[in-house]
């Protein structure tokens, strides 16, 4: 009966891992959305090795342990196979190693099975020898210790590429020692304290060693194992209380005195304070869990490699990202199956030693799983321990399988009467605590994967957005005649943004994995990324299938590249800005800001650009603020004629012209926040051009527009309307009259040059616009130069205006 149950469960496990391997094989096709890819095949070696090893292990348990618990081996086989395939998915080199370690673990497991009775007696008899040699070997790491990764605590002993972490089996040795010691004294009802002194000394020694090594995760597990063992022996709840107090005191002391604890605790309390430094790991882990959502991104389709040490400490985050909440709850249920069956084996055990041993192993497996998964989910401070059976690591896997062997042996009782139990409460309480811990972890997973997921995934430090950009084409930015400005080139997997008209960089901006996004690339991101304008069913479906947004949509701008190139040529090396606007519709035909930069070279020059004192990254046309000086003269004349306005009147007028507020335009804009007087007011060229537009269009200030239409899959080009209504500020007659009084000599338009100074620097303004009787689209032009150069301002104005009018 037992054999049949076990083999059926193992078949389910094999099916699970087979499907997982198949998905991993096909996953590149989904990532790149084509069948013409290199399929992943190497992990099948791991799957086949797992299948063979588990069949052998199954036969061995059938032979040596006829009455064993039939759930333990399948659950452990499932967890170890799942972990191994996850490691293959993350890193093939480590996948091979993990497969080898699985082989070694199962061979030792089988060898132990064939000598089970001898081993149990041996363990009980030589408890002190075992524990002290364990401590001795751990102490050796103080002298010969290394770290396979080259950095971090040196907890491994190693040679020739094989590393072993003695603190892993040390946990098991402590469990064995405590069980044997307490079982020998089960019937002595002395006052408990003197009885416990030897165990206190031994555990204290082990703790000291681990503290010197800075292996704090293992140290806290030691304290937990010791506490639970004493609790099971005495049945007194105050033991738990004392241990909880001790642990929290140690945490507080460690917080103030030990660096690594300080970092871990701060990363736990407030990970958002330093997401790229101290709490980088935890934030990345939470992002992975959030990206997994409910059903996960699919094996091989997420980006779990973004989480540091995903193969060992953060393997739970990797599993959560690719199998989602569905997978993590299943994983927790598997852990619960092992823990609960282990506790039942403990209660059914034939003698006190076996009972304590089984309960101790359950404690060790349970506490370690809770600590590391809770650490991954920010439920507890992070401790660098492994997830038993799942994480990468030979010592961890081997120890897990020895623990499994002991549990299976203890569960193998033939209708014997269990040893008497005086007080069942500690066992019920232990089971309750472990179950509660797992439930808390499941709820925390759900919190990050469902409730917080949208916020988390929109964080700018979520690298998955820029990874998606490599696989999904981003929409183009086009000029008003559908000439491309910024486009995406390459193939799925290597898509890259190319900027065909680099001089527009400070206006259209960039999108780049390291430096993020700027300009229109940032403000129009939702369209360009396909998250807006696409039907929501398509967005949902693409997220479900590929974990990415659908292909991006093209956006048409109001800019005219012919006029734009003229403006950029004219401005050349001079610092300043040019705006040419349709005075009626507010469409911006030209927007130049110099000095500018080449966004194609951003990855090499980004750092230097940010430091550059001439601020090439700033869009001077919308974000540069300049003193007004005499530039406003035509506008003042239009409102007040030759009369000199009072300060209050002027202020009210400026208010109406929008000089005290930010223009509404979907790109970064600035306005003078610092002042509310008319004297020192600074305005941006955009604000100035909007105000000046009233002279060319009947006293009305238009609403500015730059993104005019988006190409949606369902309705074709859809107009993006202005986000504000035009405002009539003065009477049309007054505006027309003022425009006519500023007619340029021999030209068919008005213009005005003004100058202003601030901080010992002189600025030159040029305002120009079409006349009231102009039959075409009314235009307004603003040129701002960061130098005293009336000649250049006039020259730029005349050339652009002539070009625009004769177009």
């Amino acid at each position: 009966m037992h054999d049949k149950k076990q083999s059926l469960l193992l078949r389910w496990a094999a099916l699970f891992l087979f499907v997982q391997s198949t998905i991993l094989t096909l996953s590149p096709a989904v990532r790149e959305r084509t069948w013409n890819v290199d399929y992943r095949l190497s992990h099948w070696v791991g799957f086949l090795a797992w299948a063979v090893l588990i069949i052998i292990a199954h036969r061995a348990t059938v032979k040596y342990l006829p009455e064993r618990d039939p759930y333990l081996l399948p659950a452990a086989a499932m967890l170890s196979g799942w972990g191994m395939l996850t490691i293959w998915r993350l890193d093939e080199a480590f996948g091979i190693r993990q497969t080898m370690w699985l082989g070694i673990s199962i061979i030792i497991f089988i060898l132990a099975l064939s000598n089970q009775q001898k081993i149990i007696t041996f363990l009980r008899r030589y408890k002190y020898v075992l524990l002290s040699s364990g401590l001795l070997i751990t102490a050796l790491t103080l002298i010969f210790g290394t770290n396979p990764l080259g950095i971090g605590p040196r907890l491994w002993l190693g040679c020739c590429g094989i590393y072993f972490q003695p603190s892993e089996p040390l946990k098991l040795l402590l469990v064995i020692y405590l069980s044997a010691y307490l079982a020998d004294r089960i019937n002595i009802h002395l006052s408990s304290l003197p009885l416990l002194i030897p165990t206190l000394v031994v555990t204290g020694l082990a703790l000291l060693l681990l503290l010197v090594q800075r292996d704090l995760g293992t140290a806290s597990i030691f304290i937990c194992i010791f506490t639970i063992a004493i609790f099971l022996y005495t049945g007194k709840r105050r033991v738990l209380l004392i241990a909880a107090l001790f642990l929290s005191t140690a945490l507080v002391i460690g917080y103030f005195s030990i660096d690594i604890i300080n970092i871990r605790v701060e990363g736990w309390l407030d990970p958002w304070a330093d997401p790229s430094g101290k709490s980088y790991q935890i934030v990345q882990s939470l992002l992975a869990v959030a990206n997994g959502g409910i059903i996960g991104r699919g094996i091989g389709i997420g980006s779990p490699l973004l989480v540091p040490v995903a193969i060992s400490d953060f393997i739970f985050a990797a599993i959560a990202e690719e199998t989602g909440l569905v997978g993590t709850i299943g994983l927790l249920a598997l852990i619960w199956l092992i823990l609960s069956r282990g506790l039942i084996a403990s209660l059914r055990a034939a003698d006190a030693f076996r009972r304590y041993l089984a309960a101790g192993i359950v404690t060790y497996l349970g506490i370690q799983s809770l600590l590391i998964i809770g650490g991954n989910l920010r439920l507890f401070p992070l401790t660098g321990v492994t997830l038993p059976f799942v994480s990468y690591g030979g010592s961890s896997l081997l120890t897990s399988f020895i623990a499994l062997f002991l549990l299976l042996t203890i569960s193998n009782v033939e209708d014997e009467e269990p040893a008497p139990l005086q007080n069942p409460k500690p066992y019920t309480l232990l089971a309750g605590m472990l179950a509660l811990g797992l439930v808390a972890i499941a709820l925390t997973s759900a919190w990050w994967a469902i409730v917080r997921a949208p916020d988390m995934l929109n964080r700018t430090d979520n690298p998955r957005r820029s990874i998606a950009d490599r696989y999904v084409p981003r929409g183009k930015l086009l000029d008003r005649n559908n000439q491309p400005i910024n486009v995406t080139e390459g193939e799925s997997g290597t898509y890259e943004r190319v900027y065909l008209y680099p001089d527009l960089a400070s206006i259209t901006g960039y999108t780049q994995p390291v430096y993020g996004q700027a300009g229109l690339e940032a403000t129009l991101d939702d369209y360009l990324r396909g998250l807006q304008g696409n039907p929501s069913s398509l967005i949902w479906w693409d997220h479900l299938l590929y974990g990415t947004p659908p292909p991006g949509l093209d956006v048409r701008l109001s800019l005219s590249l012919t006029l734009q190139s003229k403006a950029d040529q004219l401005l050349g090396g001079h610092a300043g800005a040019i705006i040419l606007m349709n005075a009626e519709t507010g469409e911006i035909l030209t927007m130049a800001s110099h000095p500018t930069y080449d966004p194609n070279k951003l990855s090499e020059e980004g750092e230097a650009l940010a430091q550059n004192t001439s601020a090439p990254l700033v869009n001077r046309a919308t974000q540069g603020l300049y003193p007004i000086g005499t530039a406003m003269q035509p506008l003042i004349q239009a409102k007040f004629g030759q009369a000199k306005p009072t300060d209050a009147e002027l202020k009210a007028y400026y208010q109406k012209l929008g000089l005290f507020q930010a223009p509404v335009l979907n790109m970064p804009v600035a306005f003078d926040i610092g002042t509310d007087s008319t004297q020192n007011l600074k305005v941006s060229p955009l604000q100035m051009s909007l105000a000046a537009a009233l002279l060319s269009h009947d006293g009305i200030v238009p609403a500015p527009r730059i993104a005019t239409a988006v190409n949606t899959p369902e309705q074709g080009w859809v107009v993006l309307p202005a986000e504000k209504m035009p405002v009539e500020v003065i009477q049309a007659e007054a505006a027309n009259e003022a425009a006519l009084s500023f007619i340029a000599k021999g030209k068919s338009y008005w213009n005005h040059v003004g100058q202003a100074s601030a901080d010992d620097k002189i600025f030159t303004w040029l305002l120009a616009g079409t006349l009231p009787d102009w039959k075409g689209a009314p235009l307004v032009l603003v040129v701002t130069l960061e130098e005293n150069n009336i000649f250049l301002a006039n020259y730029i104005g005349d050339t652009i205006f002539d070009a625009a009018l004769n177009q």
Partner: protein
Amino acid sequence: MSGAIILALRLILAVALYGFLGWALLVLWRDIRRQGISLANRRVPSINLTVRHGRGSPIVKNFSQPEITLGRDPGSDIPLIDDTVSTRHAQLTYHHNQWWLEDLSSTNGTTLNQTAVTMPTVLTAGDEIQCGDTRLIVNLSTNTLVSPTQKLEKKR
């Protein structure tokens, strides 16, 4: 297309994971049910006790429950009207396929075949139990040694 195929596989993966867990739960539930049924089916072999108080005439009592208490307490299975017997004097229990006699810390003690009972002791046919002035002769039915559960298991 590839996405849809993989989505189907992802669903199968979830089915396999929960198939494993569901199957494990189902088997566990069946275990519990079988255990319950087998316990319910387990019949205690009947036991005949010949009770004789002092020199009075013997009364034969037949029991088929797994626990029989003796004592002055009228609620006992074998109420004894005897001042030398404690309120809850001794009990007979059936487990591990045997009848066991246990003294419940009575004042005057219990003897089995003239030996004092200090720990639970197995009864065999013809045993003589003495509580105070009361004597009981044990008479077991013949199929005592084979319990129904064992029979069931052999059939399987």
